[in-house]
């Protein structure tokens, strides 16, 4: 024995108090501390216009309120964005970046400390489509893909969604033949499956066997995932249009340089595109119709009603001296589409909400809307102005980049 129960009680109380104090920031009494407010900026919501001198409240990593004249809770952490542009973090529908490793399971190989995650934050890019592997040889479907966030140093929040599309290729004769054959098999199976489930008891049907190797095709036919293909010329694009005529599937096409030539067809089949306005392709002298690249590609597609995302000529983070052609200047690529006649709103959508929709994460990112992830960037000017810098980048409500505190660009000022 020898223990003083009185003393022991006091000791316990003391311990409880200490634990409480330690946990304080997280306890409900201090809940307001978890609110972040961005106030005073022009909010480019993307989906509902520009709110001048607006306020955004962020709670639990999500946008909880947005608008003018919003009362800011007393203990909220306030970010003053007066005179700045506030917009959703940029979304890139393609990227070749090291942070997604080389493993076929993207979730298993994410590298939150890769420099490209850090540069993405400095560039205002908060959602990134990455893919690994791909169709090879006679197999027209292959590889894997995912949407990730460049949460530098934080593995937990990096992966947004795995398998957002079915990477496919119809570019080789073998590939195309196999694709169509498998698609037909899958189509026939699905039809039989419907019959079987309907009539199996009545007609005492034999158990239906699923042919091997058609799972991916079934997913496409059920529209669970879109097929993601590459097609550059009008002829290649029409090939895919023809395929959709036979099989009603969702399709995303990369590198659609000559899409402007067949814009109406693409619109009619609701194909989504990923384009690079400055990509160059010489006109084909051997054909009499239109061909080649044009800066007007995006504008013509918009007019026809096609949904597209814009990506730069080099979907990486370039540090070797060339400026304005990689993901660090994603808005500049969209600016060139504007010079080709595209309206500014659609150009902004092509690097935010439309890109998000195409890569299947528009429910979470791509616009400033209540309930969406608080992936927000603050800019010192219009996103399409050549002098504009990203000053602040938040992902899930957390500040992950501040220009003034990072060595990258903090020495660059435009007041000289």
């Amino acid at each position, binding site marked *: 024995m020898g223990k003083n129960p009185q003393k022991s009680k006091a000791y316990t109380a003391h311990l409880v108090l200490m634990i409480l104090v330690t946990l304080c920031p997280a306890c409900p009494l201090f809940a307001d501390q978890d609110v972040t407010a961005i106030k005073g900026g022009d909010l480019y919501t993307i989906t509902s216009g520009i709110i001048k001198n607006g306020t955004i409240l962020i709670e639990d990593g999500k946008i909880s309120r947005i608008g003018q004249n919003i009362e800011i809770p007393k203990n909220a952490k306030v970010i003053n964005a007066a005179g700045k542009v506030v917009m959703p973090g940029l979304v890139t529908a393609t990227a070749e970046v090291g942070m997604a490793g080389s493993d076929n399971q993207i979730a298993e190989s994410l590298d939150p400390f890769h420099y490209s995650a850090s540069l993405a934050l400095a560039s205002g890019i908060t959602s990134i489509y990455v893919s690994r592997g791909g169709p090879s040889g006679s197999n027209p479907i292959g590889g894997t893909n995912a949407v990730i966030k460049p949460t530098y140093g934080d593995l937990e929040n990096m992966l947004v969604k795995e398998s957002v599309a079915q990477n496919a290729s119809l570019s080789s004769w073998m590939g195309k033949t196999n694709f169509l054959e498998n698609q037909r098999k899958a189509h026939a199976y699905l039809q039989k499956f419907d019959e079987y489930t309907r009539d199996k008891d009545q007609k005492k049907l034999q158990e239906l066997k699923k042919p091997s190797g058609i799972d991916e095709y079934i997913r496409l036919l059920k529209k669970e995932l879109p097929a993601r293909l590459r097609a550059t010329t009008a002829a290649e694009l029409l090939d895919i249009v023809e395929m959709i005529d036979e099989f009603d599937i969702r399709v995303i096409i990369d590198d659609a340089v000559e899409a402007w030539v067949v814009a109406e067809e693409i619109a009619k089949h609701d194909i989504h595109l990923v384009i690079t306005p400055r990509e160059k*392709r010489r006109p084909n002298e051997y054909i009499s119709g239109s061909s080649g690249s044009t800066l007007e590609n995006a504008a013509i597609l918009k007019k026809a009603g096609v949904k597209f995302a814009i990506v730069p000529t080099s979907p990486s983070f370039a540090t070797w001296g060339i*400026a*304005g052609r990689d993901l660090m200047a994603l808005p500049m690529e969209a600016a*060139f589409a504007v010079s080709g006649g595209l309206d500014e709103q659609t150009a902004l959508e092509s690097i935010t909400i439309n890109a998000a929709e195409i890569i299947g994460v528009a429910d979470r990112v791509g616009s400033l809307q209540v309930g969406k992830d608080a992936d927000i960037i603050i800019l010192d000017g219009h996103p399409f102005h050549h002098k504009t810098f990203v000053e602040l980048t938040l992902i899930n409500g957390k500040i992950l980049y501040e220009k003034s505190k990072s060595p*990258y660009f903090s020495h660059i000022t435009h007041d000289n």
Partner: protein
Amino acid sequence: MKNAIAIYSAVLLIIVGTVYAEDKPAPPKYAVRAGKILTMAPADKSSADTVVINHGIILLSDGKIEALGANIQIPKGYKVIDASDRWVTPGIVEAHTHIGTEGGFNDMVTPINPELQIAECVNPEDITIEKAVTGGVTTIHTMPGSGTNLAGFSVIIKLDKSEPEKMILRELGAMKIAQAFNPERRGGDLGSTRMGMSWSLRQILKQAKQYTEAWQAYEQGKCKEKPEFRPELEKMRKVFNGEIPTINHTYSPWGVMQTMRMFNDENNLNVIPTHTAYGGYLVGAEAAKRDGVSINIGPRVVEFSRPTYDGRFHAMGAEYSKAGVKNLSINTDSVGWSSWIAPQEELSFQASMSAHLGLDDLKALKAITINSARALDIDDRVGSLEIGKDADIVIKRGSLLDHTTPVDLVLINGKIVYQRKGVTLVVKDEGAPSEKG
């Protein structure tokens, strides 16, 4: 008799003149009514500022700028180009590119090629020329590559391909030298190290200098004996006579310094160190000290961290400017239209990116107009909007640095060479300005 010949000649002249005029009608005279004129020229020599004229008029005749200012009446007989809601700037001048030629890149047999010139390789039908014009580029300095130490001589051309025979502004643009990295060719001959390359270059410079001095002495009567004619050194005489500069592919602080020492200090030549990346700006103050040195940057315009290892993006333009370099110019080093690095029509975008990274906007604009013209010693013809200069003009809705607005109209030598589809800016055949604009 003399009179008869004179009359006869006069009649002949009239006949010839008439035939010529029928063949090639004189280009129309234009009056450009501008919202904003960025002349890229100072008011006078002592001033560094660029004259900006809001709501001005520029008169163009005989391929030249006849008059410009805010209070100019448009005379009868001038076609009016209505750019009253647009910016009017001089045509862009490219100081380092490889487009518009065919078979003029690298003659890799020997490292020293003072006999070669690219002027004969100009190909007006190269697609890059018409594309370049859509980006407002009107004059280019196009040159052999950097595979050999002395690659040959470049050419300066204007991008009006409608009269190919008139495209060449200067047949010998500059002497093209390559000093670091690319020319380390390891071809089994001298020059696989920088020691060897410097030795080879110094040898040829020495020979050409002596050759030039011998002819100078002979021509000035200081020496009676005619020097032996050496065709392979003839072009280099123009360099040593100070008529044309050298343009030197060079990199790193060592390389830029070596270029300035060998060419400017030792041989008193006007030199354009070009590329100058990998930390070349660290000797920017040395470049600023030398009047005969004009720094030309690109296609790289930014350095990340190296060689300072400070984790920063250093804008080459801003760094050279901070070091005091005055005649800074920016290039694309374009090697072809489909090259994704920097196509010729995006020279103004190279300037925009330099401005983004910290170079003053006006300095960035000078770097693709008057400064590149000055580096090449063609600023009496192009690079700014001044009376008497070539009527090379770019019209668009915003600054050349703004890339949401396309180029609407381009004139070269007073002739419209490009007008964007759907744009009609030529509003009248005759003068008599309308007040509405």
